[in-house]
């Protein structure tokens, strides 16, 4: 066995063991104590619900993934542009940063109805919700990265009378890459949360129901096993997106030979 495989296995084993232990204790406890299934269903029920409703759940998963991905893409594009804009102009930063912070602090559930009014129910409101929840870390990390450029390299570019564009593309943006990647990773997980929350309020449209809608429907029918299944899939979606973004940004950072902050 090669060393990397060994290391990969050693990071897979511990959480897997935890998972099996927790599942076993859960199953035994629920059965022994005869807890009603609508309160806490045993894991076996959850798995069979996942299997039985797999077609429905799969389509929900894809619907939510679409909203989250769209929101994440919006966050990365606009967040990066806004961050670069802020870093280029103190005035712009002072004028607009508080409002960017507002996006971070606004209770998304409270403004979700507005999003439906403005953007229409379904994918559009859901992806805007995902965008609002996930854009701030992209802005903040881009800004921090652009500000953290080696001052001596800044001097060097000044000394050689580099244009603003050259300084941006040849120095500031590549220097900020590691910090930007941190923002993307945080945003990836948040975009799934934003999409689910958005769906709670704005998810009904054109017969497409995301995982947020599934959670609500299962709750109304006291199908707690299905509810757990939907929540599980939502978490897995977040993890998957996070892992994809981590791998992609890791490759990018290696290509630019800047060290990132890891996972």
């Amino acid at each position: 066995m090669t060393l990397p495989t060994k290391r990969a296995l050693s990071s897979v084993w511990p959480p897997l063991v935890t998972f099996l232990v927790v599942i076993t204790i859960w199953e035994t406890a629920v059965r022994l104590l005869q807890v009603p299934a609508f309160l806490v269903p045993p894991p076996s029920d959850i798995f069979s619900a996942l299997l039985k409703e797999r077609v429905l759940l799969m389509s929900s998963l894809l619907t939510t993934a679409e909203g989250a991905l769209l929101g994440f893409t919006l966050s990365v594009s606009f967040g990066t542009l806004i961050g670069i804009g802020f870093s280029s102009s103190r005035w712009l930063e002072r004028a607009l940063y508080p409002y960017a912070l507002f996006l971070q602090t606004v209770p998304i559930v409270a403004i979700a109805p507005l999003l439906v009014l403005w953007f229409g129910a379904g994918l559009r409101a859901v992806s805007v919700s995902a965008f609002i929840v996930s854009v701030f870390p992209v802005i903040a990390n881009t800004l921090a990265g652009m500000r953290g450029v080696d001052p001596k390299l800044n001097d060097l570019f000044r000394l050689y009378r580099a244009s603003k564009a050259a300084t941006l593309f040849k120095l500031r943006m590549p220097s900020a890459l590691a910090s930007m990647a941190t923002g993307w990773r945080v945003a990836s997980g948040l975009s799934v949360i934003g999409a689910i929350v958005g769906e709670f309020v704005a998810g009904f449209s054109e017969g497409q129901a995301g995982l947020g809608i599934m959670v609500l429907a299962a709750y109304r029918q006291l199908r707690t096993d299905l509810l757990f299944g939907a929540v599980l899939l939502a978490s897995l979606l977040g993890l998957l997106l996070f892992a994809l973004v981590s791998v992609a940004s890791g490759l990018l950072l290696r290509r630019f030979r800047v060290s990132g902050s890891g996972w």
Partner: protein
Amino acid sequence: MRGVCQAFGATNVLDRIDLEIEKGEFLALVGPSGCGKSTLLRLIAGLDSPSAGALSVADASLAFVFQDAHLLPWRTVLNNVALPLELAGVAPAEAKQRASTALADVELSHAHQRFPDELSGGMRMRVSIARALVIEPKLLLLDEPFAALDELTRQRLDERLRALWQQRAMTVVFVTHSLAEAAFLANRTIVMSQHPARIVLDHRLSLPLARTSALRTTADFSREMAILYQALEAHDSSDEART
């Protein structure tokens, strides 16, 4: 420069410095750490402006070498050296050609396609010097460029730098806190004192033009070192000297 002062807040880092640097000379600035040598160098480079006094630099093309290499990690050695030309709008093919020549000057022709993180500290510093030489500067400013390197590497780079200066018609201002380095490299050495920073000695060294490592063990070299040392010690106002 005439009566140049530089203050940061209430601290006077430089106090009425008068200094005339002649074209083509190799000038070393020596003094204790924190005496304002680097500040003076940044003023000459135009990276900062003086709080009082006037300073004029005749030659337009100047290059600066920092204490550490400060290369762009995502660029190969060749592309790092070509950077100043690229920023000046030189055509890529010509820029690479000239970068390659500059790398040959610092004996790094074999390392074109390597990345900074694959190089030793001494090699990185040579890349940094090649990046400065590539624009064929009339004035080369170096701020303790070899301070972080081991003694042997440092001596080799000193010899290389001295040879490069002899080949090219350029003025060099070299900041160091090492008297031996100043004596070996320079034709003229300025010794500075601390609190406030003043010039305490302006000395022309009487050492041969061509210098090899053998020079370091000659009596002439020791005598020049002693002159610099006495000037430095006579104006030492550091805490260690007072106690």
